[in-house]
């Protein structure tokens, strides 16, 4: 069990983080791991093993439910259930592992996820701009007060991306 951090960047402001990230460690199994009270991000295997229990926990106890994907998880596996989650997290085990950028792109552009999309793990301020462009809107980073400026390291972009569906060449043509 781990708190993401006490504060995070969400929708371009710094807010208190009330969510806990459930992690399977040692002898934990998806079927038996305890579910602490409060807003909870569960890993994909726990969701897959205990869907009805988690939905009931949300509906009957009013406990906000989120899920997090690890870097090898396929976002297609949660496509049908995206409405059940208030937050989808994507973990970056290493800063150099860029799979999360494609996972986020797919969640936003293919599966139509519109809720909070959170990046956590080995990310720092120097990753924020690209993370934001591929569709993340919440970021668990060290020193969010300093990091937040890096969301805007670049004010333009050539490519289409999750946060800008039109590439520069089309936008330029449309505005001409």
């Amino acid at each position, binding site marked *: 069990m781990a708190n993401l951090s006490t504060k995070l960047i969400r929708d371009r402001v710094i807010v208190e983080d009330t969510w806990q990230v459930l992690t399977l460690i040692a002898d934990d199994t998806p079927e038996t791991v305890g579910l602490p009270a409060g807003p909870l991000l569960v890993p994909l295997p726990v969701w897959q093993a205990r869907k009805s229990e988690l939905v009931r926990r949300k509906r009957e106890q009013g406990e906000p439910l989120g899920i997090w994907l690890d870097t090898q998880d396929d976002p297609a596996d949660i496509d049908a259930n995206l409405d059940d989650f208030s937050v989808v997290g994507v973990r970056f085990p290493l*800063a*150099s*592992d*860029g*799979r999360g*950028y*494609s*996972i986020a*792109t797919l969640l936003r552009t*293919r599966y139509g996820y519109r809720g909070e999309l959170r990046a956590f793990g080995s990310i*720092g301020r*120097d990753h924020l*701009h*690209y*993370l934001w*462009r*591929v569709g993340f809107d919440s970021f668990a980073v060290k020193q969010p007060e300093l990091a937040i400026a*890096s969301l805007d*390291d*670049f*004010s*333009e*972009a*050539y*490519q*289409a*991306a999750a946060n800008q*569906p*039109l*590439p*520069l*060449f*089309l936008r330029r*043509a449309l505005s001409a």
Partner: protein
Amino acid sequence: MYRYNDIDRLLVRQRVTQFRDQTRRHLAGELSVDEFRPLRLQNGLYIQRHAPMLRLAIPYGLLSSKQLRTLASVTRTFDRGSAHFSTRQNLQLNWPELARVPDILEELANVEMHAIQTSGNCIRNITTDPLAGVALQEVSDPRPWAEILRQWSTFHPEFAYLPRKFKIAVSGGPDDAANVRIHDLGLQLVKNAEGEVGFRVWVGGGLGRTPILAKVLREFLPWPHLLTYFDAVLRLYNLHGRRDDMYKARIKILVQSLGIEEFAHQVEAEWAHLKDGPATLTEAEVARVAAHFAPPEYETLPKLDAGFESAKRHDAEFAAWAARNVHEHRVPGYAAVTLSLKATGHAPGDATSEQMEIVADLAERFGFAEIRTTVQQNLVLPDIRKRDLFSLWQAARAAGLATPNVGLLTDIVACPGGDYCSLANAKSLPLAAALQQRFSDRAQVADLGEIKLNISGCVNACGHHHVGHIGLLGVDKQGEEHYQITLGGAWGIEAALGKVIGPAVLAEEVPQAIEWIVDNYRVYRRPHERFIDTLKRIGTESFRDAAYGNAESGQDAKEISNG
């Protein structure tokens, strides 16, 4: 050539600002060595044996005179007055000071240049044919496509942390002068039966530890789909390329493990979601970019120039240079010229600040102020009037840039090697120098004709030794430098990987072994037969015997065949 607009300029400036702050935080101890590494690599900065190495991007090898002068001045101010043109058409500084790298990048930004994505596990500089736009065999000019891909790959947010580096090359036509088959993705411009322009797409090539030639991924990709299709390929690689072993992380390993059919099938499945989406290229955008590469205002000239023909007859040295370093041009009365960076006694691909300035001047005086860098580590002036060739040659010769050896044995391709690079097992440059010394007789080298000799200081194969007709790979044997010899590699349309002929040879003995190899070629060649063709015809056996000092068999064979 492509000129920046406000947004191109803004992005490069913002990159300088970003990297200046990252460097500051690193030097202040706020960014650890490990955190800083991927950030500096994406700006071309390595920490090397003696000092950092900074790789400056020369997108698809195209430079203006003004840009080359800036490179000369940066080389003088921030380095020691000499820099290295690499096999991927870039320029490497070997002695910059870390704290001043942001200043270098700012100087570059002033002339629309940068070091973005010249290293790291991202999409690297896109390479192409140095004769793009003037080559005879071109289906279509590759430069607009290379520029469109430069923009697409620059700061692509999804593909900045790939499993491994990713190299793309674009060839203008069937002769494949850009060597697409040794790249992660290669494009060859082709026309379909209806005469429409598109691309043959190659995937999964690369040298290094596991050399593999690319396979055809798609026979014909209509041009509007270039970016959506590439997004699909890159996404597949980003999600499924191996990340557990850096030596198995290139896309070639993914293609190999899935098989090309299954890989192509998965690309098509991913592409189905992206095809015809907003990133589909429009005629207007292609025309906008292509306009930057419109032909310059050529004079109307006769195909033959009497002065040029006469000078060749009267000056044997000039004739030798014209035979090797002057290339046909699609416009009558013009030629393209290679300025050799392979003079005896100089490290292959190295140029001094003064030489760069002279080349910039020559390009202005005789051409349209444009210079190309080549994968063979030379410089090209693409548009020279034939009537100016003699004057150009005299000026180039005075600057040590007119060695008449393009494509010959002494046009050696070499990585910087153990003198500079911390990965290298062997010092490629002293070996290159020793080989140039051994083959300093120009007439003899000219007589040998086309022989591509490539030297890599380690298995990372920056010197592309696998595709040299003769390849030399530095290996370390109990602390002694040895070289493995490969024969039979080839570039471009005839691409092939060379085969190791036997045990590695002590560095000092390599020049002798190479001399025996070319002696063997002399024994067996037919009139006008290139080294590589003789090798293909008779096989490597006699060459191997010759290399290890058993040349008698070759002589015997010659006597018998003559008898």
